């Protein structure tokens, strides 16, 4: 069973369609599937619904799909870094469903785990709770949130093997393991693709069962806020 592809374009072949829902890993510009985002930009797929914590910046990450008006709707928790996003949103060109960050992560995890709904205290008493089912447990009120199942999930890992096993590095892990589980198809781009058996089985973050296609790609890894100390 071949999982290995040579490029984002090859790996995306046959899986994209207008109006689809995509779940993307990454936090800010950290650990984002740069190559796959560019591949989707190049493919020109339209009317996308994208579940991703952030929307990149204007000219990098998911921002490039916004610039090309390929995105109809975002499910995100924070979009403060993206001026184009704001503009499209405030002018009504773009829909957004704000999800608290932990709720978004858990919704991806739940969708991948066959859990269609779960209860959380997050957002009770706020606009997030409007229209959602409320239920009391032990005298406290919770709201129900639904699992996300995406048509495609796109993730970025540090190392991967030919069986699709993935390992992430530092805070570039973030939403990637959760997004990986919730796609009907999951494509992973890695900095280093290794032979099967090169990764320690105890230390694999995403088992290959979740990953349908994998390829090695170069990564710019742009830094959003370069903060340093003296010394």
């Amino acid at each position, binding site marked *: 069973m071949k999982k290995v592809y040579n490029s984002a374009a090859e790996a995306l072949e046959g899986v994209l369609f207008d109006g689809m829902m995509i779940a993307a890993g990454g936090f800010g510009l950290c650990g984002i599937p740069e190559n796959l985002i560019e591949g989707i930009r190049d493919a020109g797929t339209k009317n996308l619904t994208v579940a991703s914590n952030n929307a990149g910046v204007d000219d990098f990450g998911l921002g490039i799909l916004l610039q090309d008006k390929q995105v109809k709707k975002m499910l995100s928790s924070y979009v403060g870094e993206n001026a184009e996003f704001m503009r499209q949103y405030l002018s009504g060109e773009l829909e957004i469903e704000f999800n*608290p960050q932990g709720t978004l992560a*858990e919704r991806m995890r739940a969708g991948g785990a066959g859990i269609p709904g779960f209860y959380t205290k997050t957002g009770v008493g706020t606009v997030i709770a409007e229209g959602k089912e409320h239920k009391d447990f032990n005298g406290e009120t919770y709201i129900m949130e639904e699992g996300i199942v995406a048509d495609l999930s796109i993730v970025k890992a540090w190392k991967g093997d030919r069986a699709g096993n993935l390992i992430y590095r530092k805070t570039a892990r973030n939403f990637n393991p959760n997004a990986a589980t919730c796609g009907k198809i999951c494509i992973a781009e890695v900095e280093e693709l290794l032979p099967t058996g090169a990764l320690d089985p105890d230390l694999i973050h995403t088992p290959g069962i979740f990953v349908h296609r994998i390829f090695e790609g170069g990564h710019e890894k742009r830094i959003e806020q370069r903060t340093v100390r003296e010394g």
Partner: protein
Amino acid sequence: MAWDRNQMAERAGRELKDGMYVNLGIGIPTLVSNYIPEGVDVTLQSENGMLGMGPFPKEDEIDADLINAGKQTITELHRTSYFSSADSFAMIRGGKIAMAILGAMEVAENGDLANWMIPGKLIKGMGGAMDLVAGVGRVIVIMDHTNKKGESKLLKACTLPLTGAGVVDEIITNLGVFKVVEGGLEVIEIADGVTIDEIRQMTDATLVN
């Protein structure tokens, strides 16, 4: 003549207890890490997936794969561990984080907190703030007592969309420290050179003392 940002952060630092796992928000709360009291061992959580957040890197230590929830480059410590966003918020929602110290636009006397949007104007999103205030053991807000127009940010009721209802335990402003209690806010400390009358004058929320 009232506290500056660093004095507010220092005052917040005194809320930290040995062994605590703590989440610090963006802005003044981030400064609190500079004021962890001597002999108090605190582990900082960054909700993008890290426990044991270290200081900003030196120029040659910068790592694009290592940022905090404010997207700033940071460093790791001996005790550091990394995990996914779902696991990160599992520990937040599950009550494993003893305290969150956050900024705010408004706090109401019943503990309501608004810090994520101004309708029609500023819509950045709530990030992890709604999860934090719903999940952690104790929520402390650090903010200026008044907004740019000089109006109280401690209100009888919030006017902006809430981040959480009845979630704030304590507020540290440039004028003093306020505890959310039955019936309103209790002034538990007054900044140097500030009088209780000045606080009364600049506070919309009910003060119980």
